[in-house]
């Protein structure tokens, strides 16, 4: 019997993938660039910021396509989550009231921060002193409260 279905290890992505393929490629390249950028001259805590930011943007892109524009199928959406194109945990937060703009999961994990509270970037602008410029340590976020 001849070899019938050349078994490609990875299953082909669901329909609609081609619509977003190019954008995902761009995100992928940015991510690679960010990972390959030498971080010698950058404060240690800042080195990961670009990676967090790209990851955030890519998750956001997929989130909006699925939940806001209904542009992609559930099947494709789930495939994207499974294949690491979007952060399912972060998206789960965005669906909750008060977390619609959350930058990253670290910023709501109380344990890791110095003051055993959520990150400064979670504080609404209204609750800050006038003109106070904040930037969180974990991901470089400058504010992600829903009311901002």
């Amino acid at each position, binding site marked *: *019997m001849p070899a019938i*279905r050349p078994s490609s290890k990875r299953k082909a992505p669901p329909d609609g993938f*081609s*619509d977003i393929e190019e*954008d995902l490629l*761009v995100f992928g390249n940015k991510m690679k660039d960010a990972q390959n950028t030498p971080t010698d001259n950058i404060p240690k805590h800042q080195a990961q910021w670009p990676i967090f930011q790209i990851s955030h943007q890519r998750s956001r892109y997929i989130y909006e396509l699925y939940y806001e*524009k209904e542009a992609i199928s559930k099947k494709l959406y789930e495939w994207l989550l499974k294949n690491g194109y979007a952060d399912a945990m972060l998206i789960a937060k965005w669906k909750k009231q008060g977390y619609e703009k959350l930058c990253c999961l670290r910023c709501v994990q109380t344990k890791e921060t110095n003051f055993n509270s959520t990150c400064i970037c979670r504080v609404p602008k209204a609750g800050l002193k006038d003109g106070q410029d904040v930037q969180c340590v974990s991901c470089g976020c400058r504010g992600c409260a829903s009311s901002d």
Partner: protein
Amino acid sequence: MLKSTYKPSPGALQPLPPGWTEHKAPTGHTYYYHADTKESTYKRPGAPPASFLPQQPPPINLSDPNVANAFMAQYNAPPPQQGQRGGFGGGRGGFQPRPRPQPTDKPRSKVAIPGHEPWILVYTRYGRRFAYNPAKNASYWRIPEKLMPAILELDQARIRRKAGLEEDEEEEGKEPKEATVSARPVTKQEEEQKAEYDYDSSEYEEVEVTDDEGDGDGEGNAKRQRTEEPGADGPVEFTEADIAAQLAAMGADYGDEDIGEDEDWEGEGSDPPFSEEDARALFKDLLDDFKINPYSSWEKLMEEGKIIDDPRYTILNTTKARKDAWEEWTRVKILERKAQRATEEKKDPRIPYLAFLQQKATPKLYWPEFRRKYKKDAPMKDPKLADKDREKWYREYINRLKLPQSTLKSDLKILLASLPPSALNNQSTPNHLPPQVLADLRYISLDPSIRDPFIEAYIQGLGPPPTAKEGELEDDVATKKAREDRRKREKALQERERAVAEEKRRQEKRLQFERARLRDEERELERAMVVGKKGLQSQLAGERLAEKMVIKREDEDQ
């Protein structure tokens, strides 16, 4: 005399003259439109403006010879005391603590009117002209009827000269350069049209007196509009952009008359009433034309920056407005594509079935086993397909899988080649192939990892889609209307760009003029510094003489 001719009446809004209607531009400005003359203006017609901001100069109705002569005389006479000029209204400088820049239109050249001696036609620095009778010491912006045939001939001669010597403006001789080259925004067109169209005396008179009376003289603009109207494309609808163009021209004209006080006009000129809806539609056309992927992100679009050089990009003037329009556009496009794909698939129920076969069918399963195994899957239950067809295709497909790759490839190529360019061309994408391909066993017989690059390469070698297709779609009313709408707003955009360019050019000219005047003033100041007290008097007298105009004011007897 001045007081009697111009008296603003704040607050007292007189009814509009017949034919005029009041409108609100999308920018919030009120404007007035005359349906018959197609004239539009920001100034309430028929009456002096009911109110104006203090810094806004009052319009002067220069088509009224009384006013015009007084206006001219003002610059002709020895410098008056501030108070003497009070009649021109507060805005003109009377109430100003320091003198404001004054318009300095002056006669530039004159030409005898043949057969009507001693009448002469005087051209001013700003391209106006008026008839002057030195014997009676009378001048008229509105050319007296009896002079018109002669002036018409003068003009025709000038137009002929111009037509022959388009390049060499100096050849125009008597007429001041500014008058034809840059002082008037529509001169060239006007001249051409004058030459082209019948030049009956009534139209003629209008063209003449109008040149650039500036605002306050609705008539003038109506006339210019009329001469512009029968353009190459025939009469067109009077659009917002037309108004914008005209207002820009009006504003610019006005600026020439009153340099330094035109901020308001500039504001209006650079913010032409262009419908918000049109602007958004144009922006969306832009997205269409650049074949922007509606599934892509706004950030990527901005990073690529390929649309930002298109004039339609700035038609929406804030990033937010652009992003909003983009959001709207993506949603509509995504819906359209979804619908399109759904109908494509509906058209041929074989497509989902064959796709399913490609995924699931295997020579390890005989048809009955396969059918039993997947009996719950949609493609196996689709009532539009007969079970015996399903079986037939299954068997065929399994048999094809035993064929060598080269055969499968050449079969696929034959299939692709059988499609007309309208169905498959270099604009096709390998992921959205026409149903003829998708519903063919030859398409599913090759593994996608080999097939898709193969098809992509094939498509790239094809020609563009035939353009005749558009003609066939013409009967589609909606398509037709969409195309028509688009044509309209593109025309409006062109008009607007023309107006903006015009305004820019005029501003530059004003700037140049300002600089020139500043230089003059400096020079005068220098001169004043060097002459003694006695010398000053004689110098002033001399200057007065030099500046003396051809006309004198037509005195208080009017």
